[in-house]
């Protein structure tokens, strides 16, 4: 009546039920009414710890080791008491830091190290594969056995069959499909799967009910309760031994090391981390789980020893593997429904484990191993696409299939040689390697990346050497002499008596040596060097997690970053302009025209992070980036607030610095201005004294001659005329002086009316030379003039230019010695301008006077001892005029060798040429 078809149908109905629960859970989650927001569901989901290893393997272990199997459940109970400190902290940290796997957790703690993330992933995958193989083996075995109903027969050896004939292969494929459907239907940035958790909780319930049902049946159906069963067993001396702590796995050392191992396993197995930390909805659910989860463990273990004893009593002739008693006892008693229930319970235990474990591992493989490598190898190409979710999903699905295939391979090649419990313990020992880095990292700020990497690697290597390789050797993959003689025949390196350590079972032996090196190196290397700033701030983020307020109401997740947010964030700390520039620079580097067109991909985020790191330190930068890249939980808001304050202080101090620099500059300017003012003041004094002096001289002579004329009416006509002409000359001089002062004032105030016309500079030169010819003749000076045939016209005020020429010529005449004086006038055509040189062979001007003679009332030489021979305004006015028309006026001179005054005026040559037909 329990046909193969019925079993398959029952299995599929059961799996269909799981899907229905998962779908319902997801629907409720989408609607915001979480099905799993309940401490009981949380505790039940934690019971994914109990796999088919518990369901079938505990009985097998109890059948040989008595009570020894219990240490694997006592350990988690003890650990649960520490969850208050440990797990709560891990949950809080993970929620705050958006941690999605145990690899992520370790990597994040030690300065977001990719190497550590990859290392943890590799250890987890390698360590857990045998464990998955174990589940496959359990499903396969239980399926074969129940198919034989009503007969009780052990399945044949798997390894002798071709894998395509092996139903385990198809079970593995089916599980992969289930897992993909359950776990990677869509990409969730948070890696939370509410529906899945609901299904897992249901599975936990099913396996508990099934196991207890079998236990009750065996204890009360086959025997007359506990008393009867134990009494009958006690009559058999072999079975009596099982009721004590004894046997191979019953020694106290083994008991203690298994307790410790299981304490670590319940925290650090990838699937436990997944359900306990990642899938945790509310930190407060932990409170109830602290005692509900151990209670579950207690309940599922009460009947282990009775079933084992019952099985041993019933199949006293042997031939039935104790690992299968849960299934074979109901079959032997012709109880099809109980057998089916037991089968479904075992299926629950195995599928639950496989699904959660592979999802956790695939997340780790994708996020901590494949993506970092992929981003490194093909980052630019990946960055170009806006949506990486399909790629991520693909990687995860591939990882799930890969993990299950590896598990199958392990099972196919080695699974038969080991009892269930031994395989599981290998995995436990592997994940126990995470303990020093995680627990140390949670409470010891000094633990650093190098220490963690060295400790983990050493522990992993020891684990491979003392546990995994011997397992391979026993499966026949390695020569068995490897076990008995050690590698290269070195006795001290015997994998199960490393360095000659005898008397420990292989698990305790591995635990001791791996922890010895793991903890030792972690502590020693950490102490060698102080952690860098990034590690330190990350460490305090972890160690001081309890001091930060927990994230409340932060159930809203965002999957990706937006460029707006990123640039806003950058602008916030770098200043909007710098952020814009930096992003524009970065955009150029990547060959994108505008920063707005930058994709908000991991590369940009990374760049933004490194940009931020320059301003606010890398750890803060990471937190900031995390806040926009994924979610913005409350405590991140606080961090923003704190950093905002810090950046404000920074900005203030920068402003202060800037202000003080500005003040400094202003002071310098003021000092300069003051000097200039003093100089100007001096100039004004000089000006006034010069002007008064200049005015007084002609006035004095005018007055003197007028008085003479008034007092002596009898002067001869000739003398009168002479005096009158002097008076007229002096008045003219006075008028000229006043005119020049007025002229200069007008020029300087910009009120001059200029009349710019094109004219020929040669004509102006000729005219001025003619005007001056009398003066030159009077002083007996030789005048020489040169100009080219063809001269381009200039645009300027002709009268003003004449004024300049006359001034220069009269200066030359003034300073030349009469008789030997020689004045040379030259007109030179330079490409853009006309240059006029007026050279004399007078006394010259000393260097310090060369700059000053263009100042008002400045004259070469000492004005106090020598009689000034001009108003001292001519050159100042000339320079004003020349500069107004875009030219330059300067002097080249050497004392004793004459002086050459030159000016340039831009000419119209080019323009003129163009206008010519």
């Amino acid at each position, binding site marked *: 009546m329990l046909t193969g078809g019925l079993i398959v149908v029952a299995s599929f109905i059961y799996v269909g039920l799981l899907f229905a629960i998962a779908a319902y859970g997801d629907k409720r989650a989408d609607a915001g009414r979480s099905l799993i927001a309940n401490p009981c569901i949380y505790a039940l989901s934690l019971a994914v710890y109990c796999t088919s290893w518990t369901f079938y393997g505990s009985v097998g272990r109890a059948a040989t080791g008595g009570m020894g199997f219990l240490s694997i459940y006592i350990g988690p*109970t003890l650990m649960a008491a520490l969850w208050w400190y440990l797990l709560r902290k891990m949950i809080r940290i993970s929620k705050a830091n958006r941690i999605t796997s145990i690899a992520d957790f370790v990597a994040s703690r030690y300065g977001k190290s990719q190497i550590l993330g990859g290392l943890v992933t590799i250890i987890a995958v390698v360590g857990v594969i045998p464990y998955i193989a174990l589940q496959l083996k359990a499903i396969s075995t239980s399926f074969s056995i129940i198919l034989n109903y009503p007969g009780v027969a052990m399945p044949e050896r798997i390894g002798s069959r071709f894998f395509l004939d092996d139903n385990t292969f198809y079970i593995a494929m089916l599980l992969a499909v289930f897992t993909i459907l359950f776990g990677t239907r869509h990409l969730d940035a948070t890696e939370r799967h509410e529906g899945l958790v609901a299904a897992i909780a249901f599975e936990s319930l099913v396996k508990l009910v099934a196991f207890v049902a079998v236990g009750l049946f065996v204890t009360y159906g086959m025997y007359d309760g*506990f008393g009867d069963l*134990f*009494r009958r067993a*006690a009559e058999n001396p072999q079975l009596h031994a099982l009721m004590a702590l004894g046997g191979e796995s019953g020694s106290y050392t083994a008991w203690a090391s298994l307790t410790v191992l299981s304490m670590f396993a319940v925290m650090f197995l990838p699937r436990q981390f997944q359900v306990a930390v990642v899938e945790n909805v509310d930190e407060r659910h932990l409170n*109830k789980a602290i005692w509900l989860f151990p209670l579950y463990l*207690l309940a599922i273990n*009460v009947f282990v020893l009775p079933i084992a004893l019952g099985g041993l009593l019933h199949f006293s002739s042997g031939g039935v593997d104790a690992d299968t008693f849960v299934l074979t006892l109901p079959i032997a008693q012709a109880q099809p429904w109980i057998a089916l229930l037991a089968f479904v319970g075992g299926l629950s235990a195995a599928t639950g484990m496989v699904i959660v474990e592979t999802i956790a591992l695939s997340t780790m493989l994708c996020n901590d191993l494949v993506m970092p490598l992929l981003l490194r190898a093909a980052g630019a190409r990946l960055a170009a696409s806006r949506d990486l979710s399909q790629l991520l999903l693909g990687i995860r699905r591939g990882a799930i299939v890969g993990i299950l295939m590896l598990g199958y391979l392990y099972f196919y090649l080695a699974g038969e040689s080991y009892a269930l419990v031994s395989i599981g313990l290998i995995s436990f020992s592997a994940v126990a390697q995470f303990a020093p880095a995680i627990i140390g990292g949670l409470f010891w700020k000094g633990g650093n990346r190098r220490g963690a990497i060295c400790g983990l690697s050493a522990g992993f290597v020891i684990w491979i050497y003392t546990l995994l390789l011997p397992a391979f050797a026993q499966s026949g993959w390695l020569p068995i002499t490897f076990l008995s003689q050690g590698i290269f025949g070195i006795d001290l390196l015997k994998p199960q008596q490393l360095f000659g350590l005898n008397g420990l079972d292989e698990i305790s032996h591995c635990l001791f040596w791996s922890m010895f090196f793991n903890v030792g190196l972690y502590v020693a290397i950490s102490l060698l060097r102080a952690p860098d700033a990034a590690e330190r701030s990350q460490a305090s983020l972890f160690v001081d997690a309890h001091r930060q307020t927990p994230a409340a109401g932060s159930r809203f997740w965002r999957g990706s970053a937006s460029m707006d947010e990123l640039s806003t964030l950058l602008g916030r700390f770098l200043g909007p302009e710098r952020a814009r520039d930096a992003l524009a620079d970065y955009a150029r580097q990547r060959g994108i025209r505008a920063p707005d067109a930058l994709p908000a991909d991991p590369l940009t985020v990374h760049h933004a992070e490194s940009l931020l790191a320059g301003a606010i330190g890398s750890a803060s930068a990471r937190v900031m980036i995390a806040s926009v890249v994924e979610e913005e939980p409350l405590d991140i808001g606080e961090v923003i607030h704190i950093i905002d304050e810090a950046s404000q202080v920074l900005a203030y101090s920068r402003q202060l610095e800037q202000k003080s620099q500005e003040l400094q500059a202003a002071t310098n300017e003021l000092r300069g201005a003051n000097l200039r003012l003093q100089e100007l003041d001096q100039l004004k004094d000089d000006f006034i004294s010069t002007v008064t002096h200049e005015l007084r001289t002609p006035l004095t002579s005018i007055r003197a001659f007028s008085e003479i004329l008034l007092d002596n009416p009898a002067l001869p006509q000739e003398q009168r005329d002479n005096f009158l002409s002097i008076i007229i000359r002096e008045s003219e001089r006075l008028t000229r002086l006043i005119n020049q002062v007025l002229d200069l004032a007008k020029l300087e105030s910009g009120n001059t009316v200029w009349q710019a016309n094109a004219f020929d500079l040669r004509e102006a030169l000729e005219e001025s030379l003619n005007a001056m010819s009398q003066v030159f003749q009077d002083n007996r000076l030789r005048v020489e003039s040169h100009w080219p045939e063809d001269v381009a016209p200039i645009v300027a005020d002709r009268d003003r230019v004449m004024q300049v020429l006359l001034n220069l010529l009269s200066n030359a005449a003034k300073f030349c010695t009469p008789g030997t004086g020689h004045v040379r006038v030259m007109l030179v055509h330079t490409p853009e301008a006309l240059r006029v040189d007026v050279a004399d062979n007078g006394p010259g001007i000393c260097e310090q006077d060369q700059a000053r003679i263009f100042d008002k009332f400045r004259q070469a030489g000492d004005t106090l001892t020598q009689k000034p021979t001009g108003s001292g305004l001519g050159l100042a006015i000339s320079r004003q005029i020349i500069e107004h028309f875009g030219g330059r006026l300067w002097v080249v001179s050497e004392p004793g060798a004459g002086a050459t005054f030159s000016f340039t005026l831009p000419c119209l040559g080019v323009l003129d040429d163009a206008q010519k037909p």
Partner: protein
Amino acid sequence: MKLRPATQHGLKGQRLAALFLLGALLFNYPLLQLFARGDMVFGVPLIYCYVFSAWAALIGLMALVVERGDSNG
């Protein structure tokens, strides 16, 4: 007012840590050895009886510590 929950919080954790130490003692050599001699009580092996009752008691104490007092402790 602010001090009380914090103290309670700290106390809960310490009580649980103490229970951990108690459990570590209860389920280890040498205490285990006292009960591992194969004697029977009430028709049940002494060690079986001891481990499960100690286990249950430990869980009961943990529940008591966690659930007592304000629930959001």
